[in-house]
Every structure is written in structure tokens, then in C-alpha cells.
């Protein structure tokens, strides 16, 4: 594994930085690299907080609520608010896709309500949805 592989792509970081800045602003190469490393560290740190919560609750799968909770714990309230809305939209999109697949495949799955208590079931279902494709999200 090379150094480049363990960081987020610097082109994506640079593009994002430009989006938020005025057109006359410039960014030095070293600044991009520093933000790239900070962003990678951000992901590792949030992941660590989320996985600790999973272990405390005797769960094996890190899900979206754990990510949301980790952001709140770290004091990143603005991020948590936006991620909460994003999670809601994501699950709506997944439910629509699942229903579409169910309609076309004519399977007999029972309907699930979208309540907090079903979070674990949803996580399991999401893994299976991904599993049907070529890639796997479980290690």
C-alpha cells in the first residue's frame, strides 16, 4: 500500500476547496496536502468513535446512526445535523430501490416500518442489497 492509497485523492480535495472559495483565491500545494491529511484523519477518528459505540452495544456493524452519533459526540453539531438529514434521504432512496427490486423479483419479503428499533434490521438489509452486487461491504 503506497502513501497515495491511504489518503483521500488530492484532486477531489482540491476541487472541493475551490468550490467554497472566491474565484480570485489561490491554494498552495502544501495547503492542499495538509487538508488532504486532515480529512483522512477526520474519517479515521469518526470511524473510531462509531466503532466504539458498536462494541459497547454488542453490535458488529457500523451503521449510519453510529456515524451521526460520533459526530455529535465530537462536538461537530453542524455536521451531525446535515448528516442526519442525509441519512434520512439515503434510507428513503434505499427503500424505494428495495421496493422496486421486490416488485420486479416478486419476492415475499414482509414490509418493514421505518422506526428506530428497525435500524439493525435495515443495516442487515443494506448489506444484503450490496451483496447482491459484485462488491461486498462486509469484511
Amino acid at each position, binding site marked *: *500500500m*503506497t502513501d497515495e492509497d*491511504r489518503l*483521500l*485523492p488530492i484532486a*477531489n480535495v482540491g476541487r*472541493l*476547496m475551490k468550490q*467554497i*472559495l472566491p474565484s*480570485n*483565491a489561490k491554494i*498552495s500545494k502544501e*495547503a492542499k*496536502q*495538509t*487538508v488532504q*491529511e*486532515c480529512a*483522512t*484523519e*477526520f474519517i*479515521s477518528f*469518526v*470511524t*473510531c468513535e462509531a*466503532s*466504539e459505540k458498536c*462494541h459497547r452495544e*454488542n453490535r*458488529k*456493524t*457500523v451503521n449510519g446512526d*453510529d*456515524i451521526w452519533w460520533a459526530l455529535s*459526540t465530537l*462536538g461537530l453539531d*453542524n*455536521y451531525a445535523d*446535515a*448528516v442526519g438529514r*442525509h441519512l434520512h*434521504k*439515503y434510507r428513503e432512496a*434505499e427503500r424505494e430501490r428495495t421496493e422496486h427490486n421486490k416488485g420486479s423479483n416478486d419476492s415475499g419479503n414482509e414490509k418493514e416500518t421505518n422506526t428506530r*428499533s*428497525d435500524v*439493525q*434490521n435495515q*443495516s*442487515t438489509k*443494506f*448489506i*444484503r*442489497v*450490496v451483496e447482491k452486487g459484485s*462488491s461486498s*461491504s*462486509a*469484511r
Partner: protein
Amino acid sequence: MENNNNNHQQPPKDNEQLKSFWSKGMEGDLNVKNHEFPISRIKRIMKFDPDVSMIAAEAPNLLSKACEMFVMDLTMRSWLHAQESNRLTIRKSDVDAVVSQTVIFDFLRDDVPKDEGEPVVAAADPVDDVADHVAVPDLNNEELPPGTVIGTPVCYGLGIHAPHPQMPGAWTEEDATGANGGNGGN
């Protein structure tokens, strides 16, 4: 590690621009499938943590969105710092100064190596509540051996998580127990 920060998180003069940033940033939520960062790369970074065994499909998706916000937030604050010195170019020292001065970025200071290759002269005075952090963290990439994550996060492991021999069995187990998840092997 506990990061409960109730201090004010930004200088008053920056409030207006940052609020504007957050208002605009929210619009990015509208497209659920639009990702700036590759999901596969984020998943790989998540798995650097040995405690992470399984990841729901939604988790790297959300982390991608959170990371976008983080990059934009850090960039905006760095730009404000550069502006204070009447510069149009963001430098590494601007980013380092923002990390030092912003409370919500505490975790970046605690976890990065402390030794500095070069002294960094911060243009702005440090904020009072971070007066004890005189040194600016040096994120020089050359100091890290290949494959090393920058400043390994301090993980308070709660016992050893027993691996399950069969992955399909683990899923079936989770189905059987519902929201409570699996409790060891059956």
C-alpha cells in the same frame, strides 16, 4: 477520549460568513447519490481501524458527506485566516493555524505528531482558550512511514471482539435477534 467542548467555537466576526457557508452547504444534501470522494477509498480508510469488523452500506456514504463538509469548513476558515494577512493564497500555515485555534478540530491536534520540521509563524494571535498549545502541529508527510495512518486515534477498546467463523451465519444471527444484534457465538 472525551471531546465535550462548550466554548464558543468561532470568533464573532466570522459568524456571518460561516453561517452563509452552512446555509449554502446544506444545499449539497439535495443529491443523495452525488459524492465528491470515492466510497471505496473511504471504506478502505475506515478499515484501518482494527476494531471495525462490518460496515453498513450507508456508513461510508454518510462519512463522505461529513468529510465534504469538513474540507469546506477547514478551507473557509483557512481562507479567512489568509485574508487577515491580506493574502489571496492559502498557505499551509493558514491551515495549521486554523487547526490550532478551532476547538472543534481538537482531535487533529491531539493525534498528529508533535515534532516540527520547521517553525511556523502564525499571523494571528492564538485564541485564549487554546493558549497552552504553542506549537503548531507539523503534518509533514515525509515523516510517516508507508501505510501509517497519521496520528493513530486513541481507541478505548472495551474487551476483545470475538470474530465469527462464518459471515452468512453472522447475518442470519442478526436476523434472528433483530435490533439487539448478535451476542457472541451460538
